[in-house]
């Protein structure tokens, strides 16, 4: 399937990282305790940050570690601790639902893989030299964000503040009158 790939440091690193990410994803699906599931998603996030580094998005890799692996995983753990966290998913009588879900997910995946691999689409050839050569990633992002994308940037900040205020309002205990 991946024939024609020269074994270089980059490809080896990519396959190790990909294996780590997928293993953490499978752990998320197969663990019994909810808290272990939330911890294994942290592994997926860190692996994704490594993939971003390979795609030369250093700033986003940093943000990924900071935001996802740091903040979101911890927030998930908080939420699990605040709800029933010592609950173990009990094996249930087998129903048709997970089977259909597996068929659906696998079918969807096969369709995507077919499009990627076998449909004969000519993907653009990768150039060995980076398009962002010698340029500071953070500087590029900053310039694009504050020149071309000012209005979306401001809108997204409004969305973020509204969402966070709404979250506080929702989670706040209502006063008993």
């Amino acid at each position, binding site marked *: 399937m991946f024939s024609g790939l020269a074994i270089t440091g980059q490809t080896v690193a990519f396959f190790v990282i990909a294996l780590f990410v*997928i293993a953490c994803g499978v752990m998320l699906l197969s663990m019994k305790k909810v808290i272990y599931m939330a911890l294994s998603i942290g592994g997926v996030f860190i692996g994704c940050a490594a993939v*971003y580094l390979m795609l030369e998005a250093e700033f986003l890799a940093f*943000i990924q570690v900071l935001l996802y692996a740091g903040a*979101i995983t911890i927030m998930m753990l908080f939420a699990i601790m605040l709800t029933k966290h010592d609950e173990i998913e009990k094996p249930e009588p087998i129903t048709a639902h997970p089977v259909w879900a597996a068929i659906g997910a696998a079918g969807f995946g096969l369709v995507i893989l077919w499009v990627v691999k076998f449909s004969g689409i000519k993907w653009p050839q990768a150039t060995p030299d980076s398009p962002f050569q010698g340029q500071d990633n953070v500087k590029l992002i900053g310039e*694009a964000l504050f020149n071309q994308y000012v209005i979306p940037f401001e809108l997204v900040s409004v969305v973020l503040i509204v969402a966070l205020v709404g979250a506080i309002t929702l989670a706040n205990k209502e006063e008993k009158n």
Partner: protein
Amino acid sequence: MLSVEQFLTLGAILFCIGLFGALTKRNIIIVLVSIELMLNAVNINLLTFARFGLMPSINGQIFTLFTMTIAAAELAVGLAVLISLYRNRNTSDVRDQDLMKW
């Protein structure tokens, strides 16, 4: 030399893991986590085309930044809803949240 296909394959596999988790997991928080996994797969795709695409540019990274922000907002609201649901109904099982089920 790595190219588009390997990264797209990784993104597709991650997306399918997330999809399966979101469809079958019973704890609401894990369903939310699976949705985050799918968003991460999409981010990998965006960054792949920003680096290896026909016209590589920084715009894909900007889009990923926006996706991450929206995902964080979504997660904050989702967790607040979950906490409030748990307080009211005392369960974190998806199948018990069937008040609006037809």
